[in-house]
């Protein structure tokens, strides 16, 4: 699949019903900023540079579509652009535990991968909060 441009991301946000917003500090800057609240209460946010650049690194693009745009697959992004139809996700199950939190639970808390992956996002967050607030 191709690498997207920032124009693609901007267009995706418009199609998918994201709200355009200023930065919290009121700066316009050289990005457009977008936010969307999903049905399960998740808040997804992203930015699109005013430049005509392409996002050249596939690893960054993977993080953007998965973690910033809250998609389950890259294809959902391109399908929205092709069809101009928003992504169907409001009725879906809550988004999974973020990758970084799974890594922390395994490498810092000491859970096995199997246990870390079996936790719901809420359980994973609570387990992490207990770990970091425990006296050492």
């Amino acid at each position, binding site marked *: 699949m191709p690498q997207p441009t920032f124009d693609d991301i901007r267009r995706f946000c418009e199609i998918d019903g994201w709200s355009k917003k200023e*930065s*919290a*500090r009121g*700066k316009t*800057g050289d990005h457009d900023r977008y936010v969307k*609240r999903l049905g*399960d*209460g*998740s*808040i*997804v*946010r992203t*930015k699109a*540079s005013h430049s005509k*650049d392409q*996002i*050249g*690194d596939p*690893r*960054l693009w993977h*993080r*953007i579509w998965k*973690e*910033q745009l*809250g998609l389950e697959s890259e294809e959902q992004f391109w399908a929205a652009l092709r069809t101009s139809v928003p992504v169907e996700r409001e009725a879906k199950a*809550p*988004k999974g535990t*973020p*990758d*970084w*939190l799974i890594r922390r639970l395994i490498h810092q808390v000491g859970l096995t991968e199997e246990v870390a992956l079996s936790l719901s*996002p*809420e359980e*994973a*967050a609570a387990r*992490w*909060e207990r770990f*970091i*607030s425990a006296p*050492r």
Partner: protein
Amino acid sequence: MGDQEPAVKPLNLSDVRDRISEVFTDAVVRHRPVPIARGGKDLGVLLGLEEIVRLVEGISFEPEVFKEDGAVNVWLPEFQVYGRGKDLAAARLDLLDEVRDYVLEYLEEIDSYRAAPNRRAHFPHVIKALAADLSGHLDSIIFADRPTTQAEEGLAAAHVR
């Protein structure tokens, strides 16, 4: 259990108002946490910045650097934000800007951010970044000992994903 008196009794908010300077000195200069109660229901603790920094010292950030033709990106997994620039130094500056924005946004909309399944676990890192920014150490807290320039980065390539 619940009806036992705490060892350190909270000050009443109205008492705190009358001697705010002394209470502030206790918390910040004498490093003594000051519990404060309002109406027997709301309970808070006034802490000095130094104590907050100590409380979150076990928390770290793990930025990831991605290079492409003509641009460098630094992704911060803990907040799911990234900075972008023509070189590593510019990308780092852009990321710090993003982090400051995120912390402010999180605190301004804390009810929804603390309840959001994908944001709730960010809270300790938000406090870490807030305390670091207030202390003037945001850059060193986010990047720890990671390289600042691409030349330095080349030397430390093994540590950069």
